């Protein structure tokens, strides 16, 4: 029985908590580090898993590719699978068996493939870090049009000027208004996704605090006002918004 088939067999028993009395997820680790023919076989099986997940991801994002032809997709898939496999093997010692090994492996390929597609999507586009350029005072020419939503937008713009640093404003505009993918922006700025997300989190906390103080947000809101239209097919998060203007 191969490492893959052992892992698949577990999946028929339980998705989230593999039983401990059957060959466990660590079999993959043993096979991949043990040497000999079993290691070579496990490496081939792992690469097949990486290809499967990378293909799944690239085909999901295919419309975003500058060249969405099947041959171009194949090149991206193979490159992403190779790089994901290298990344996984470097982190193999961190696998703790909290999920099936195959699921754990898939996420490396999905991350690598998604990052590569976004990079290709933006490779010929200039990324501009610009400051807020909306008017500081609301326009009242047409009071009928100046409804609650516009008032809130003006309040948000005022809060951005008042409580955010210029750097925070530029990151907010780039990610949340201009829709630059977070890993593309991180790459252009020589930083990483985590650091930019921390900036985003901090500036959101500042904005929410300011808007709450000024009476635009309830004290303990469960959700922000004017929620963005949610993707009805998304089961992962109700209203993903970052980077999707």
């Amino acid at each position: 029985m191969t490492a893959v088939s052992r892992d698949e067999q577990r999946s028929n028993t339980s998705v989230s908590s593999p039983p401990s009395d059957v060959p466990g997820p660590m079999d993959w680790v043993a096979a991949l580090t043990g040497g000999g023919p079993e290691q070579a076989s496990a490496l081939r099986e792992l690469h097949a898993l990486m290809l499967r997940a990378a293909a799944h991801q690239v085909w999901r994002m295919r419309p975003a590719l500058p060249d969405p032809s099947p041959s171009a997709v194949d090149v991206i898939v193979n490159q992403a699978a190779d790089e994901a496999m290298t990344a996984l093997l470097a982190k193999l010692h961190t696998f703790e068996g909290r999920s099936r090994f195959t699921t754990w492996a898939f996420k490396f390929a999905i991350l690598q493939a998604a990052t590569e597609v976004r990079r290709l999507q933006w490779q010929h586009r200039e990324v501009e870090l610009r400051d807020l350029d909306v008017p500081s005072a609301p326009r009242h020419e047409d009071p009928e049009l100046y409804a609650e939503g516009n008032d809130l937008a003006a309040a948000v713009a005022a809060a951005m000027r008042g409580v955010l640093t210029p750097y925070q404003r530029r990151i907010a505009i780039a990610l949340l208004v201009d829709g630059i993918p977070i890993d593309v922006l991180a790459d252009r700025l020589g930083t990483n996704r985590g650091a930019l997300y921390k900036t985003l989190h901090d500036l959101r906390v500042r904005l929410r605090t300011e808007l709450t103080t000024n009476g635009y947000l309830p004290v303990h809101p469960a959700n922000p006002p004017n929620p963005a239209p949610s993707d009805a097919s998304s089961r992962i998060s109700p209203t993903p918004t970052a980077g999707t203007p």
Partner: protein
Amino acid sequence: MSTTPRPDSAALTPRNVSALLQDTTPWLSCDECFDRVDSYAEALVHDPTYRDEAMAAHLRGCAACDEEAESLLRLLDGR
């Protein structure tokens, strides 16, 4: 080389406002999200009502992590 598209500078759109005011607490980093997304996706496949507030908050606030988590879920679902 094209440049970043400029939005209408007259106002932030409702979607912009929603994104800017998204509540991303409790805090979870992108690295922590990556560490947990495999077990999170498996838990969701097993029980669609499963909730992890920190993961949900992070995925609402990070479009890249959300896309990858959704993709993993669909791969596990066979869709």
